[in-house]
């Protein structure tokens, strides 16, 4: 057992677990953040995607000791990590609802985390960039085309908002 400190969704969290425990199970079992899902345990499906220092990683295959002292963002903290107030949705979450993406919904939190990491670096992604960023996230309900649409919608909405802000500043 080891005492490890993480920064999860903006708060410092101390956990006492064996150091090789995958981050996924620390989030789900120790910190009770169950929005991050277990799908394959082998980094093949992306259901467990979270951000570490802003980068998307597969938490099922990441020993918790590797993220000691680092900043972890899960679906529960995604909106707040983008400066939104409690109760507000990240633009991707809003577009996921607007485009009616989820069916069973199990993979969708991981999909949204991958998409959020994409938009943070590539605010106006092409279809090919979306495919490249999202190809590691499996969905057995087959929601891929609506996911693509929702990412485009979110990118467009964010771009529109940026222009408005820039216009207001002038």
């Amino acid at each position: 057992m080891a005492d490890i400190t993480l920064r999860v969704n903006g708060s410092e969290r101390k956990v006492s677990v064996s150091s090789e425990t995958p981050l996924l199970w620390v989030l789900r079992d120790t910190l009770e953040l169950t929005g991050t899902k277990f799908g394959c345990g082998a980094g093949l499906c992306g259901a467990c995607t979270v951000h570490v220092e802003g980068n998307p990683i597969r938490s099922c295959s990441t020993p918790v000791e590797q993220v000691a002292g680092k900043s972890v963002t899960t679906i529960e903290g995604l909106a707040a990590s983008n400066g939104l107030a409690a109760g507000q949705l990240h633009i991707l979450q809003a577009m996921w609802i607007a485009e009616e993406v989820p069916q069973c919904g199990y993979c969708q939190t991981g999909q949204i985390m991958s998409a959020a990491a994409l938009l943070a670096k590539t605010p106006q992604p092409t279809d090919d960039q979306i495919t490249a960023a999202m190809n590691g996230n499996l969905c057995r309900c087959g929601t891929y085309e609506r996911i693509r649409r929702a990412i485009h919608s979110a990118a467009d909405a964010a771009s529109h908002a940026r222009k408005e802000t820039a216009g207001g500043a002038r």
Partner: protein
Amino acid sequence: MSPLSRREFVAAGVAAGAGLVIGFYLPHKNSSAEVFSPNAYLRITPDNKVTIVVARSEMGQGVRTALPMILAEELEADWKQIEIEQAGASTLFGDQTTGGSASIRTTWDPMRKAGAAAREMLISAAALTWNVARSSCTAESSHIKHAATNRSLGYGELVGKAATLPIPTDVPLKQSKDYKIVGQRLPRVDSPAKVKGEAIFGIDFRMPGMKFAVLSRCPTIGGKVSGFDDKDSKKISGVSYVGKIGDAAVAVVADSVWGAMEGRRVLNVAWDDGPNKDLNTAAVMASLKQGASKKSASLYSAGDAAKASGRRISAEYTLPFMAHAPMEPGNCTAHYQGTKCELWAPTQVPQDCRDSVAQAIGLDPDQVKVNVTLMGGGFGRRLEHDYAVEAGLVSKAINAPVKVIWTREDDMRFSTYRPASLHQLGAVVDSSGFPVALTHRIIAPSISGQKGQPGPNGVDPDLPDEAGPVYGIANYSLEYVMTETPVPLGWMRSVYALQAAFALESFVDELAVAAGKDPLQYRLKLLAKDQDLAYFTTTWKTARMRGVLQLAAEKAGWDKPLPAGRYRGVACFGCFASYMAEVVEITMENDQPHVHRVLAVVDCGQVVNPSILEQQIQGGIVYGLANALRAKITIEKGRVVQGNFDDYAPLRMNETPAVEVYAVPSAEVPTGIGEPSVPPLAPALCNAIYAATKKRIRALPILS
């Protein structure tokens, strides 16, 4: 998984002072005698809250939205004020099985009548309150209105009076043209929680004091535990119990999932491999070939196919075992407390979970309470109750609440698989190349048969919903040979329709090619005459199949040439009482098909929610494409070979085509939509590959 025949009663049920309850009495399929109790689909309380109870399980197919829409339509309810409640296992709802694309078609009438009866009673209550004629009152948006005096009462205000009135047994139902809710693209009620990570799936449920368990199961089909050494497991931090569960598994219990997994990793189990230790895929396929010589049961017969004479064409098709692989691995939470047990189960069969768990742990069914959680996909895998039974047994063994979790490898290797099958197709064609006789023999093990319910006369009980005739050929024989296999079998999305459609619709394409005809025009010619094809409880209409095929051809631009290098194929099929046609457009890249576009047309009667319908069809096509391209479970030395998403690879975004969905406008009774889009995909794709390469694929998967 046919919808059950049911007797239906409407009865008064007044919850003590709480409000108006509309009850239906529906027999449960496993009821020994006619034991009925009232079931509330609907509660209206004085605070104007309208709660609609959903007695099917939500696995992504949208029942928590679509079923309440049906009731709310007849109730004339304000949709914005509806609350949805998920029913657990009950004796009040009839069969609660979620499967067979049956949720809407089996609840369409009960939900409509429940809403309509309540609406009529609320109208009566208002008329009595105002002392006016019933006929002068109307229901609208959760209010009863009296236009002549401009008065209005909310449903909540009428609860007390309505609850005293008799429930009408014969209520008027609305016409399709008057629908305000049914047919609308209403947003799904479950989306917000799902995108926020707040939705509670089975795997997410937590309770105080709960332990976690993973099981080590005998990797050889039919094998058993002969002994185990738990010394190393118990050294793992948090592991509190290791013990045999049933004959074929050892459970490792810990205070975390990871602890249980680690405990299992170092557990040393000796297995008795049992009778199937030499079983392999080749032997399974050989047993199907042997089965072909057996006498078959007739599923459908017209004329006399054996007597037809002329040019003969024949072909054989084979399909492998496949696994459902839903994203949420199997799990169930159980809390055994001596004289009762409570379950939190992601399940398509809450009643079977209740009964099986009760039997396994020595309780009566009414001592087991089943709560139905959200499911991370089902696709038929959660029609099994194995996870629930394991959870019940482990909870009893440790006398504490426990969640049993399966890993992905557990899911892949201990699933119940879509049966492998062999299909022998034969036709006698006339001088124009059209069949005067067609024979289709399906040789496959029976899923229900393996579970002890083979059905009468050698006919597997699923085939009536899934393998009907498509064409009105004068001499037509559809036959089934029931074989056996030790490989565990299960109902997987579209069940036998996938196999039947692949064989038939590939073969019809071969006939069209042999006749030198366009495959679409060839099919339309076969469907040219209006015919009713009676097949068990369904009457297939060639006119409706022709309708979907024509619309698909039109929307696909079948009569227009494709760009260079693009090819297309078509297939149509009917199952779960719906008609479906699909056109698949491909290019060939490095000898492999890349699917660019799928055009899908369905005739499923009245559409309840077009957005959910599109989801189901898009999803079915993605699922069907993964099945066609790669899905194959193989057996070596009695063990399932595949283990995770690397060697059993679902479709990813880069392989996903654009899917266009059209529904034939219809006010007919709604029919199935969860599964019918799956079967035509594989034959349409293989027919496109033939168009591109002149190579006929007669065995799935394509990329084997």
